[in-house]
């Protein structure tokens, strides 16, 4: 390519200079700015992102701006939306709207922390296995295989049952049962990128292993990981909701899943008690999926529509 350009310039100087020829150079690094631009041109993804921001802001500032206790009995039991409260009240008279508002903070906080832990375990295991290969890879992959054999929901139910339904245990129970996906993905990316020229060059220049992993390979493995992590947040929200629904969560924290679980025996008399918290979950996770799809398209413009 380079010689081609050079020769052309010479040719142009030599008198044929009729045409101007431009050549684009491509570097192996990811074009983040281009990605952001592509993402913003995707209306669905942008809309999803905006809705998510609204939810996050509601989670952060809602409880401060609207001080209340989600466990407080404020209305007639099973009163419908608009009777005493905006979205109705449950069988004890707790306000559904306040529950959702306060649940936003707890749900998002637990889901984000659990995702963080999941991703941390997954990337660490995957990176070590992919980078070092050989015996380390073998051992780590056998361990991964073992964890894949345990059905996530049942396993985390067991963990919570055996230990406690403390928030920390719930977060760990989610992370311990789901990290394998990220581990396999990271390992696959590492195996692929490890052989690229710029990685070999960095190695030749004597970069330490830690530096190779965190500064050279990981940043280039990021695009697929970013997409996977985004989608993982959505899965974790639903996962946490399922555990909360089954009552396997901290008794002092109100989450969306718990609201649905608490009203299980009464929802034939009060559809609003389960419908609204469920819609909140659906909306947030849907928006995460839209953002994930948008990122996917932005990172791989050629694969659009797949």
């Amino acid at each position: 390519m380079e010689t081609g350009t050079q020769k052309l310039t010479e040719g142009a100087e030599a008198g044929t200079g009729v045409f101007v020829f431009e050549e684009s150079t491509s570097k192996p690094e990811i074009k983040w700015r281009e990605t952001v631009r592509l993402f913003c041109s995707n209306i669905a993804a942008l809309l999803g992102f905006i809705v998510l921001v609204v939810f996050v802001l509601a989670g952060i500032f809602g409880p401060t701006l609207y001080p209340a206790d989600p466990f407080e009995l404020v209305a007639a039991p099973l009163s419908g939306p608009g009777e005493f409260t905006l979205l109705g009240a449950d069988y004890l008279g707790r306000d559904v709207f306040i529950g959702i508002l306060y649940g936003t903070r707890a749900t998002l906080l637990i889901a984000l922390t659990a995702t963080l832990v999941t991703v941390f375990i997954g990337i660490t295991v995957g990176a070590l296995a992919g980078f070092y290969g050989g015996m380390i890879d073998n051992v780590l992959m056998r361990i991964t295989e073992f964890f894949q054999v345990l059905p996530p929901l049942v396993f985390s139910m067991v963990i919570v049952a055996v230990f406690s339904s403390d928030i920390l245990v719930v977060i760990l129970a989610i992370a311990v049962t789901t990290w394998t996906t990220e581990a396999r993905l990271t390992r696959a990316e590492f195996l692929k990128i490890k052989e690229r020229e710029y990685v070999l060059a960095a190695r030749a220049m004597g970069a330490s292993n830690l530096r190779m992993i965190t500064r050279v390979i990981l940043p280039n493995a990021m695009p697929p990981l970013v997409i996977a992590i985004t989608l993982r947040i959505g899965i974790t929200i639903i996962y946490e909701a399922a555990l909360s629904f089954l009552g396997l969560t901290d008794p002092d924290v109100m989450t969306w899943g718990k609201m649905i679980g608490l009203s299980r025996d009464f929802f034939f008399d009060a559809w609003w008690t389960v419908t609204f918290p469920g819609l909140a979950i659906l909306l947030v996770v849907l928006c995460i999926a839209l953002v994930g799809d948008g990122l996917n398209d932005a990172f791989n413009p050629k694969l659009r529509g797949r």
Partner: protein
Amino acid sequence: MKLAIIQRILLGFVLVIAVIVLNFFLLQAAPGDVVDAMLAEAGGGDPELAAKLRASYGLDQPVFIQMLKYLGQVLKGDLGYSFYYDESVTELILGHLPTTLMLTLSALVIAVVMGTLFGVYAAMKPKGFFSNFVTVFSLFGYATPVFWLGMIILLVFALYIPLFPAYGIRSIPEPEHWFDRFLDIVNHLVLPTFTLAILYLANYSRISRASMLDVLGADYIRTARTKGLSEPKVIFKHALKNAALPVVTLAGLQLGQVFSGAVLVETVFSLPGVGPLLYESIVRRDYPVILGVLFGAAVTTIVANIITDLIYQRMDPRIQSIT
């Protein structure tokens, strides 16, 4: 090839042992032991009796010996005893299994067959209406909590339009004739199966669409067309078998989850399956049952993985020559 299968089965066996060891340590970590459970059941007892019982159960021996004993027990199929149900855990689980299997297997079959067809149809017109529908459908499938969907379906089809029963698997009283009893069970399973199948279906449609789009761009599809084959033959003979490979992988994974995939749906629809058994045992802290279910679920996954590998090998001749 035979060697590969034996290797696979051996690995499966090692995994089973590992699960048993994990189970043992979880049992150790759980508060209380068999003796506590027995005494609680008997309405309390003095410490001397407790110590005697512990000795008779070998609970005073070193952990490692206990573990080996537990290992031997489980390998013989003995998962312990539930004092709450007054029944062996193995029998308890087997008793709850049929409902779970009926529910998950029918949902899985519906989802795989329809999902594949949806995916094929969507891939033929990647910009068409149906293709977009599959995309939106799979987005909702990803975002909808299955237990919530179950409740909404109950509200609509059992409460507002009372077409189907809301809970249980049999009417009380049960119909006399065996065929009516069968229809009664089917009737009870419609809504939970539909709930589970619709979310599976969303996933299968997406996977099979993507896989089909991929395969349709392959060189051998172009070859099939240059040979003058008709379009249905190109799609259903040449493309489908290749495109089905990822679908088979996913179906195999979910086949491994038949045990556990329906925990939430069964709970919502109050079906007497493994899910509610697990849930209620957790509420009652009935640890032998809880860990028995975990073990059963893990073993199902291991077996399903081996079966999936075998099917995959049959479908893709390239695999055999590698191993």
